[in-house]
């Protein structure tokens, strides 16, 4: 009887979920210590964070809006991770997806055209890292980070140069009305959120219910065994980069096409920066599982949406959220966190 709780946890394979929850808890705990160290009130900060994230219909809409792009970049990381690749390149593909939406909807103001071109450019930008990995053995962490910086400067040039808005140089030209994503229920939330959830479910189906996805996962677990089993691990790696690039590219396009009232990339690319990195945190908390990522993304979306009220009411700089996210990711990296805590609890009790 004494251990029935933990037996249930092991039988239902809830360990990953519990470990993620513990990581989140530790993130908030250390975040509170940091806040106290700088003379802020953590209780006040967290209270306004929660109110800002879920307090009203518009707040919930904004939570889901923030969840959308990081769901897409998290899928990029997770799909690659399942193939045994640490793809940090979501950031670069995201920029390219965003600028693709701006460029191509200005040619033909059609929503689907903008989304498809975003996916295409995102996928194209993932190819150099894929080929360098497979044919030159270059570690993807280094190549994707370099490609992110190259993408940053290239897209920045397009944003301040050829595609700058002549009547408002702080932004690019706007997405034409005919290509904007429809909004849901009289809020600022666009159907991008629905498309992101569909993308996550499709990723799940692809990875776990198709032969193709099985091959990808098999080569991620053991590439030599996969080769023996008739899977070409090199091809699996290239496809994981490409599908990952599609996800981030689509994320970038949806961000710009579904973001009222701007519908443009803003100065210094402020509204497209950082989603690739946040996506890594989302993927790790979601345990690289597409369905887990949906929930993790909504949770991270809450953190982002709540920050403006937290900053305004509790006067806490919104960057504290990134501190908490960093601690959560480090905690997730502790192997066997659940067993570790159970053991120390038993010792304590």
């Amino acid at each position, binding site marked *: 009887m004494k251990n029935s709780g933990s037996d249930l946890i092991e039988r239902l394979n809830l360990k990953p979920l519990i470990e993620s929850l513990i990581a989140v808890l530790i993130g908030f705990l250390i975040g509170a210590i940091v806040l106290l160290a700088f003379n802020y009130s953590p209780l006040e900060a967290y209270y306004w964070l929660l109110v800002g994230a879920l307090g009203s219909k518009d707040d919930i809409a904004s939570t889901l809006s923030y969840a959308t792009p990081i769901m897409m970049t998290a899928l990029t990381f997770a799909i690659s991770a399942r193939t045994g690749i640490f793809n940090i390149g979501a950031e670069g593909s995201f920029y390219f997806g965003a600028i693709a939406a701006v460029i191509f909807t200005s040619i033909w103001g059609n929503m689907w055209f903008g989304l498809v071109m975003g996916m295409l450019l995102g996928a194209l930008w993932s190819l150099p890292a894929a080929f360098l990995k497979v044919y030159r053995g270059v570690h993807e*962490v280094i190549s994707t980070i370099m490609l992110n910086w190259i993408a940053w400067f290239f897209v920045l040039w397009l944003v301040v140069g050829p595609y700058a808005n002549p009547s408002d140089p702080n932004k690019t030209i706007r997405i034409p009305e005919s290509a904007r994503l429809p909004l849901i229920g009289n809020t600022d939330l666009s159907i991008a959120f629905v498309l992101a959830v569909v993308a996550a479910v499709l990723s799940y189906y692809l990875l776990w219910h198709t032969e193709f996805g099985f091959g990808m996962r098999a080569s991620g677990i053991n590439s030599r065994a996969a080769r023996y089993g008739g899977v070409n691990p090199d091809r699996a790696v290239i496809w994981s980069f490409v599908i990952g690039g599609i996800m981030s590219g689509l994320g970038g396009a949806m961000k710009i096409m579904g973001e009222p009232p701007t519908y443009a990339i803003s100065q210094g690319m402020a509204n497209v920066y950082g989603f690739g*990195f946040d996506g890594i945190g989302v993927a790790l908390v979601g345990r690289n599982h597409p369905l887990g990522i949906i929930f993790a993304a909504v949770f991270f979306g809450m953190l982002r949406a709540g920050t403006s009220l937290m900053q305004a009411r509790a006067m806490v700089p919104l960057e504290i959220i990134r501190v908490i996210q960093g601690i959560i*990711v480090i905690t997730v990296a502790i192997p066997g966190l659940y067993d570790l805590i159970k053991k120390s609890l038993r010792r304590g009790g």
Partner: protein
Amino acid sequence: MDAGSVISILINSFMAMVPIVLTSVGAVWSERAGVVSIGYEGVLLMSAFFGAMVAEITGHATAGLIGGMLTGALLGMLHGILTVYLKGDHVIPGIGINLLGMGVVPFGIIAYWGTAGQHQVAVTLWSWDTRYGKVSPMVLVTVAIALVTWWVLFRTPLGLRVRAVGENPEAADALGINVEKYRFWSTVYGHTLAGLGGAYMSVAWLGIVQKTMSAGRGFIALANMVFSGWNPLTALLGGWLFGFFDTLATWLAPLHVVPGQFILMLPYVLTLIIVAGIIGKARPPKWDGKPYRRE
């Protein structure tokens, strides 16, 4: 381009080399012992921040450098506990440390100095001021560290043991070497050097703390480590090359020969090309990034 500009670019390239060389040399040592870390970007950022903070509190730039080293050492211990003792993945904690740096630094700048985005450091390290730009004594320190690290790694019993632990931990273990201890302290050493490099950026070189000041240098240092073939001496040369291109880019950008963005892209494009050209020939230590469990 006149002679003065050439000398000035050369001098500045030595200044720009310091954080890359220190991080690369530290990473070489750590990977020779078998521990991979990709968290140096975050280490550079956080040690730049805490280094500047310590320098201003104590009024001594040297104390700031030590503060940066301590920051690096603590992060190295965190990474070492997760990877060496708990046998965890080597890449994920590095991602976490990088994310942490992206949060701690902008938050700290606002919370501690009350300004957003950037802080001018009040206490900076003494340097030689020449007609062509300043030269920090840290340039010499960096060269010395690279030379001494090479010597210890390849010419002393300590270095032999460190390399044995990364190359063949089973044999090392059989000879009575404490694999975990050597791996752990090698990780700490690697991160400490990166911490010195980070503090150098804020209290000796740039004189500012900024949330994007590491600008990919942590990763460029890793690329340089691969380029060097895991050798501190070649890492010194490679680090200077990257420093040179970094300086050249900042020097060329305002001239508007081509759009500035394309010039600023240069160091990253070159890193990619160099890494692509070199790998295949270069071979990491055999047990690099793999946890070792005693049978």
